[in-house]
């Protein structure tokens, strides 16, 4: 599903080149659950942003579903983001003036879905994420776990193939984090391809595959064996 070939990203900071990602070569298959771990500044977020078409590679190629997408124009990338990719952020990124239901509905609104169908799908999503009772509340009135559930509901409402999560439990306490993790796992079992950048060792342990990064390089790529035994 995803093929990265010598993908690099160089930033210019204060006249100096910063190699955020160095020649990453990687293949992620459909239905995989990948945890990206590594210390701060190791390039994991950059990798995730490149995968999500929020950033452009300096060199190398990125093929998504057989299509070279790294150098597509902005409208084409926007279309891919809408149709194939969902995002979950550490700080949720909910629109504060909108209710939980409106936040979940937003991708459907942007896609031009007719209101009747929107209502149906939002109701189903809220129900599936146990948010029906909080539908009319604004993000400020929700707990962290609820906010992240709203964000996940929003990221999946258009039925993406790939869900990218950047520290999804980073702003949550352990228990809530585990809840969110369970939710992500459920989505993965339903067939979603999941890539999670995390510091959380519990996520890293439960992922099917763990990619370790250091200084912009992929230094380890381990797969949990079928038995689920510890590596």
């Amino acid at each position, binding site marked *: 599903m995803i093929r990265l070939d010598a993908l690099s990203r160089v930033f210019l900071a204060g006249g100096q080149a910063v190699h955020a990602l160095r020649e990453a070569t990687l293949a992620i298959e459909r239905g995989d659950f990948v945890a990206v771990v590594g210390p701060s500044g190791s390039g994991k977020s950059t990798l995730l*942003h490149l995968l*999500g078409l*929020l*950033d452009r590679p300096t060199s190398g190629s990125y093929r998504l579903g057989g299509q070279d997408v790294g150098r597509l124009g*902005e*409208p084409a990338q*926007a*279309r*891919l*983001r*809408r*149709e194939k*990719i969902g*995002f979950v*952020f*550490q*700080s949720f*990124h909910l*629109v*504060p*003036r*909108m209710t939980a239901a409106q936040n979940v509905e*937003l*991708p459907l*609104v*942007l*896609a*031009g879905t*007719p209101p009747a169908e929107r209502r149906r799908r939002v109701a189903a999503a809220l129900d599936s994420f146990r948010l029906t009772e909080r539908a009319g509340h604004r993000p400020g009135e929700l707990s962290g776990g609820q906010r992240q559930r709203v964000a996940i509901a*929003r990221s999946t409402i*258009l039925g993406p193939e790939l869900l990218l999560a950047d520290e999804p439990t980073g702003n949550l306490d352990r228990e809530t984090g585990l809840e969110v993790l369970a939710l992500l796992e459920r989505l993965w079992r339903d067939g979603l391809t999941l890539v999670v950048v995390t510091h959380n060792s519990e996520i890293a342990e439960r992922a099917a595959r763990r990619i370790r990064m250091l200084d912009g390089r992929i230094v380890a790529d381990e797969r949990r064996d079928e038995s689920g035994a510890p590596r």
Partner: protein
Amino acid sequence: MRPADVAAHALGSLRGARLRAVLTLLAMAIGVAAVIVLTALGEGARRFVVGEFAALGTNLIIVLPGRAETVGTAPPLLGEIPRDLTLDDAIALARSPAIRRIAPLALGAAPVARGGLEREVMILGSTAEMLELQHLELRSGKFLPPTAPDVPSPVAVLGATVADELFGGESPLGQWIRVGERRFRVVGVLASRGRSIGFDLHDVVVVPVASAQALFNSFSLFRVGVEATSRESIPRAVRAIRETIRRRHDGEDDVTVITQDAVLSTFDTILRALTLAVGGIAAISLIVAGVLVMNVMLVSVAERTDEIGLLKALGAPPRQILALFLAEAAALALAGALVGVVVGELGARAIERAYPLLPVRPPAWAVPAAVATALGAGLLFGILPARRAARLDPLRALTHDR
């Protein structure tokens, strides 16, 4: 994205920054209201002046003695002394088929007395035709009888003020008054409405032109009012007047001919230009309001970087972001314009109520023009912030707070 959703999203974001939106809207509203009230005033002045002129008569041409021109050959002191315009000239004018009727006017001031009361008033010498020609109305009695213009007759028509001053509540009809050294019998009183190019017709006495000439011992006329048979025949009438005068004045058409139409259209043009000018000045405030819209939108873009990044992450292409922010600017401008139209119309009505003489009504073009200018200014000044939003790097937008 559906247009209704674009509008709803724009309104939702405006509600998020209510005070800012309301203040900008207010600026827009003031601009639009100013355009409407000022153009309404200009248009009111135009209608008033045009109405006054139209009330003077129909297809009116005025012939004045002397010619307004600059002569280059002889020094002014040796120039010709203009010939008087006489009653015979006036009678000759009436012969042209393009001319329906004429009313000569001789002018002077004389003491008018009745019993012990005496009053110095303007004496107008004219003919029966003056009534029709100048659309005069009578309060009581009749106007001058239709006798030959060159025959004096001791009858007089009083202006309303003169009648009231000399006779109090009494009816002046059939009574005698003394004008200068002569006696006249009052046959009618003018209605109190009325003005005649420069004269207040309240404070006059109208007598037959031949009597006035005898009174002032002068054969020259102040002017001759001419009514053309129709609007189309006005140019022919003017030519006929010039020819007649040239024939009678040894080859010199030494008169000034003013057509009511020309005066009317001149005033009309001037006052329309004035209305446009004040409207234009008021429209500048709309540009200022546009700058305010830009300011509000720039702040909005800066405050909502997060949201813009999110929209991009959710797959909104740049054009959609542009449309969302332009819709916001348009909503601000349009709401302001609508409030402005209401305030402007109410303002115009209030002024009209305070000054009933002035028909203060905005011209037909003013309201759509003001709204269009407001919307145009809003969109124009909305483009820069909207483009800034559309071009925002999604990554920077999403991570700027971390």
